[in-house]
Structures are given as C-alpha cells and as structure tokens.
C-alpha cells in the first residue's frame, strides 16, 4: 500500500543559468572553430556575436525569472544550444559558398531572425499571463489557421519556389505562413478536442482488439485528411500536408487514448500518399528517389532526383563516427546544405557522435513538452503542450528520416537548426508557449491560489462556493485579469 504525496518543486532558475552558460559556450565556440578552420584566425566579429547571443539568452532568462519563475529549467538552454549549433553551421556553409562565389549571406539573415525570434518569445511570455486565455479563441484560431494555410494560394501574394507554393512575399522577404499556422491550428485542435473528446472516445465496435469509433464520429478526421490532401494538391508540398495531418492525429490520440485513431490516421495517410504518388509526378518522383536513389536516371534528374539525397548520404559517410571537425568537411557540395540538409552537414562535421547528441537534445525538448502536458492541471493546456511537443518531435523524425533515407524526403525544416525565418520565429513562439504552460504546471498549488500571483484567478468568495480547480468542462470559467 502506498500513498501519493505532493513533492516540493524548486523553481530551478539557477540551474537554468548554469545550463545556459554551457549552451552558449557550445554556440560561441562552434562559431570560433569555424573561423579558425576556414581562415586560420578567430572571426573578426566573434566578440560582437558572442555578446549578442549571450545578451539575448540572458535577457530571455531574466524575463523568465520575472514572469514565469517556475518554468522548466531545461527547455531554454536546449533550444539556445540547438540554435547556436545551427547558426555556426550556416555561417560555415556561408563561408564555403563565398569561397565558391555563390550567393551567400544566410548567416546574417539567420542571426537577425534568431534575435527577432527570441524577442518575440519574450513578448509572448510577458503578454500571455495564462495559457488558458488561448482557449477563448478556439474557433477564431480555426479560421485564422485555415486562412494562413491558403494564403500562399492568393494570386499576387503567394510565390512559388522550387515547385511548392507555400511562401508569401511581404516587403521583400519570403515567409511561410504555414509555420505560424501550425501553432494557431494546435490551439484550435486543443480547444475543440478538450470539449468533444468524450464523444470521440465513445465505444464503437471492437475489431481485432482495437476499439473502433462509431462511423458517424469519423467526420473530423476525414475533414482533416481532406484538408491536408488539398494542401498537397494545391500547394504541392508534401511536408506541410504531412505536418498538419500528423498534428491532428497526434492530438486526437492524446485526447482520446484510442490507438484506433492512430491506425485509422496511418491507413488514411498511406492511402492518400499512394494515391498521390500515382496521380502527381512530383510525389511519385520523391518515391522513386527514395527507393532507387543510386539509379543513374534518378541521380541525374533535373527536378525531384536523388542527387541531393545521395550527396547527403556521402557527406554523412565522410563524417563517420567522430566527424571531420568544424570547417573541415565539404557540406556545401549538397544542394540546400543550409536548410533542408543541415542535418547531413552537421553529421559530416560532427560525426555520428555529434549528431546523436543533437538528436538527444531534441528528445529532451520533446520530453519536457510531454512532461509539461502531464503536469499541467487543465485539459486544454495538456493537449496544447502535448501537441506542441509532438510537432517538434514529428518534424525531427520526418527530416532526419528523410535525410537518412528511412522515409521519402519531404520539405520540412529542422526546428532551430535549419535556415529559415518563418520556421525559427514559429519555433521560438512554441518554446515561449511551452515555457508558459510549464510554469503553471510546476507552480505549487499554494502559490496558484495566492492572490496577486501570476496567472491568478479571482478567488471566489464563500457565497458562490469555490470553483473546482483545474476543471476543463465546457463551462469552465476563464477569468484572467488584463495585466
């Protein structure tokens, strides 16, 4: 016989500062090593770069001390380390491109986006005092999310790059609205599923040990499937389509705990993908390049060939167990080495040892997200945090699986590592939201009730009776005072 007693939680801000110092050391020393290897001296702007990175990270750390003192201490250092590794690798590829007189300048832009992303994360943490506020905007989020997805189809606004129509051009910068769309849609999925999960988890017929849902409850999953197929057909992007459908199925599973939804989702997706590979040549080419990458016809194909994939594999092989070292490999031989194939570039220069460390960092990040989901008291927060953690892990799987030829290559970005402003901004917002939710997950109940504390609800008086803490029924009162 055992009893369960609440455990005292330490805020862990000093632990976070210590880890942050290590993470910054990783980023700055990588930058210095790249300079040493390429030019023989330290990069001229190493001190400015280091000071900028330290300033931004410590600034975010101070915002956490101020606004979310109980936030998870591991999330921020992990993300800073990943972002620093990505910046160093992009700078390294930049130098290689310059040496070959190709278009460069990715590193500066990525640095700008990093700064913007961290400031945006701080703004989210300061403005959003309680994640439950987001639940009010469940159906607004649906409309906004769908609008963001179809935005690239608007003539004059959307642009087509390399066959996929997922960018919009605003003031000279191209931007992927779907990256922000995935956060907005996760708000909608969480709000919708927390209200309707009882219906979706209702018992239906049981087949082969699987508890199937009733046929009439299949509506939402079919709708999500059709929408992601529409993205695939109209915007011709496998990655975005896969991401949205995966997010929906993942959150559906989180909400209902029914394996059958995963089975149905997988069956629908495999069916859709097979159909698409027959009907659309650009999807079919991806399959050919995946299954037969070493065929001459596939390797030399101008579009949708396997040249990039095979060069990436050779890069990984060149790296071996311990890698060539920063600046010693030739990752620039792979097309899109700074964005789609940054994993192969890192694998070449850091080797399997380094790449595994990076994957463990992603694992830690996803685990902290899921742990937050377990710890938080309201159902909306649980689903939302779980969904965000799932998105990060899912993107990693799809990208690393594609680069290592486990699954067909799709155009998703590696969170925090790959070059791309919209992806970086979106992922920093995800981190801010996870930190916000983890703050309320780890905050002791006594402080939650204390008036004046962040995220305080109105303490109900004795006449009306206290509201059940952490209830997430459809009638939940969300009472957040504007700060």
């Amino acid at each position: 016989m055992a009893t369960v007693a609440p455990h005292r939680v330490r805020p862990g801000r000093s632990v976070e500062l210590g880890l942050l110092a290590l993470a910054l050391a990783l980023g700055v020393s990588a930058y210095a090593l790249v300079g040493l290897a390429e030019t023989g001296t330290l990069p001229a702007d190493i001190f400015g770069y280091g000071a900028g990175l330290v300033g931004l990270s410590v600034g975010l750390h101070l915002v956490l001390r101020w606004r979310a003192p109980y936030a998870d201490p591991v999330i921020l250092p992990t993300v800073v380390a990943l972002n620093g590794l990505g910046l160093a690798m992009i700078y390294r590829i930049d130098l290689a491109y310059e040496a070959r007189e190709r278009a460069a300048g990715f590193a500066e832009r990525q640095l700008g986006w990093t700064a913007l992303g961290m400031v945006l994360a701080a703004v989210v943490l300061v403005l959003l005092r309680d994640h439950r506020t987001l639940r009010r905007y469940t159906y607004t989020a649906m409309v906004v999310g769908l609008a963001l997805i179809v935005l690239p189809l608007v003539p004059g606004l959307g642009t087509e790059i390399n066959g996929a129509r997922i960018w919009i051009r605003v003031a000279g910068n191209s931007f992927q609205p779907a990256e922000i769309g995935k956060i907005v849609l996760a708000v909608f999925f969480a709000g919708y599923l927390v209200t309707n999960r009882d219906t979706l988890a209702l018992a239906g017929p049981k087949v082969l040990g699987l508890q199937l849902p009733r046929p009439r409850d299949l509506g939402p999953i079919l709708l999500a499937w059709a929408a992601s197929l529409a993205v695939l057909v109209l915007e011709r992007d496998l990655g975005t389509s896969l991401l949205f459908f995966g997010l929906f199925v993942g959150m559906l599973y989180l909400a209902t705990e029914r394996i059958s939804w995963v089975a149905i989702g997988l069956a629908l997706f495999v069916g859709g993908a097979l159909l698409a590979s027959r009907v659309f040549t650009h999807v079919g080419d991806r399959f050919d390049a995946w299954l037969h990458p070493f065929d001459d016809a596939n390797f030399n194909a101008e579009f949708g060939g396997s040249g990039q994939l095979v060069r990436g594999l050779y890069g990984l092989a060149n790296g071996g167990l311990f890698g060539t070292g920063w600046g010693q490999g030739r990752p620039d031989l792979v097309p899109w080495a700074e964005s789609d194939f940054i994993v192969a570039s890192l694998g070449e220069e850091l080797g399997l040892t380094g790449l595994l460390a990076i994957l463990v960092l992603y694992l830690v990040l996803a685990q902290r997200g899921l742990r937050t989901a377990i710890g938080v008291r309201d159902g909306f927060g649980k689903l939302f945090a779980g969904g965000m953690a799932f998105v990060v892990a899912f993107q990693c799987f799809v990208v690393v699986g594609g680069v290592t030829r486990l699954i067909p290559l799709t155009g998703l970005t590696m969170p925090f590592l790959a070059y791309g402003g919209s992806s970086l901004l979106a992922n920093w917002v995800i981190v801010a939201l996870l930190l916000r939710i983890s703050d309320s997950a780890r905050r002791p109940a006594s402080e939650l009730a204390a008036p004046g504390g962040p995220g305080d609800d109105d303490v109900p008086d004795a006449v009306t009776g206290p509201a059940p803490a952490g209830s997430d029924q459809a009638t939940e009162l969300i009472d957040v005072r504007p700060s």
Partner: protein
Amino acid sequence: MSELTITLLRLGYLVLLWLFVLAAIGVLRRDLYGTKIVNRRLRRAERTVSPAVTAPPPAPGRPGPIPRREVNPRRLVVTAGPLRGTTLPLSTSAILIGRAPSCTLVLDDDYSSSRHARVFPQDGDWWVEDLGSTNGTFLGRERVTEPTPVRPGTQIRVGQSTLELQR
C-alpha cells in the same frame, strides 16, 4: 594549425557537446517533480520505532496530554474500491469526483458517472453534493439529495469506492 590541434579541438568540441547533453539529463533526473510515492508500511514501521527513541514514555500516574482536537479534516482518503489508499490533501478548493479525466479524483469505475459528486468547503465545514449521478452518492446509508455537511470519519460511497474525510 597542426593536425594534432585540429584533432584535439574536434574531439574537445564533441566532449563539450555531450557534457551539455548529460548535464541536461542530470537536471531531468533530479527534476522528476510531481508526486512522491510513500510506502505506508515503511512509514508505519518508522513511526512505531521513533517514539521509543525520541520521546520518553509518559510518567505513570500522570495522564498523557489530551490530543488537541482539530476542527478541520486535512485529507480525503479512499478507503475501499480500486483506488484504495489514495489520499488527496484538502485545500480551499472543491474536489470533483467522477470518471471524466478533468475530475480531481478520477475513478475508473463503471458504476460512477463522469461528474459524479463534489466535496467542497463552505463556512468552515466540508459538504458533499451529488451532481446528478446515475447511481447516486451515499453518505453513510443515506442517499445524498442536497448538499450535506460531512463529518470526518463518515463514509461517502461513490460507485464502488468509499471515501472518508480524515484529520
């Protein structure tokens, strides 16, 4: 730069990378927050041992101090049913009992409703209220039809589980 320096820097960087990873995992290991499982038998064994060591037995002829009677119960204990042994600390907020995952005490019990009953503090007392459950909530032998004050030690029956307020 010599070949040796390059190799040392290369391997040194990998060491630094793994140092960070292991430090992060070390924090996670220490940070398994949430709940602590206490084995009751061990604690009872400790309790039977400790008074003998710390407190001398009361002098004969003098009655021991009368235990101070606390007015407020401090915890809700499941005394029978699948969750037997579960303890919930009582605070200022109400406790929702039922099958829905959003309840404070989630019963995996076909005989309870999704939102079955509520135990809440009011005017210094704890009250139990049935939330329109199918099979009803019983206080002792009486079916609860309206919010009823609960005395510590009285049995509250919800589905197959029996709960009790304890000091």
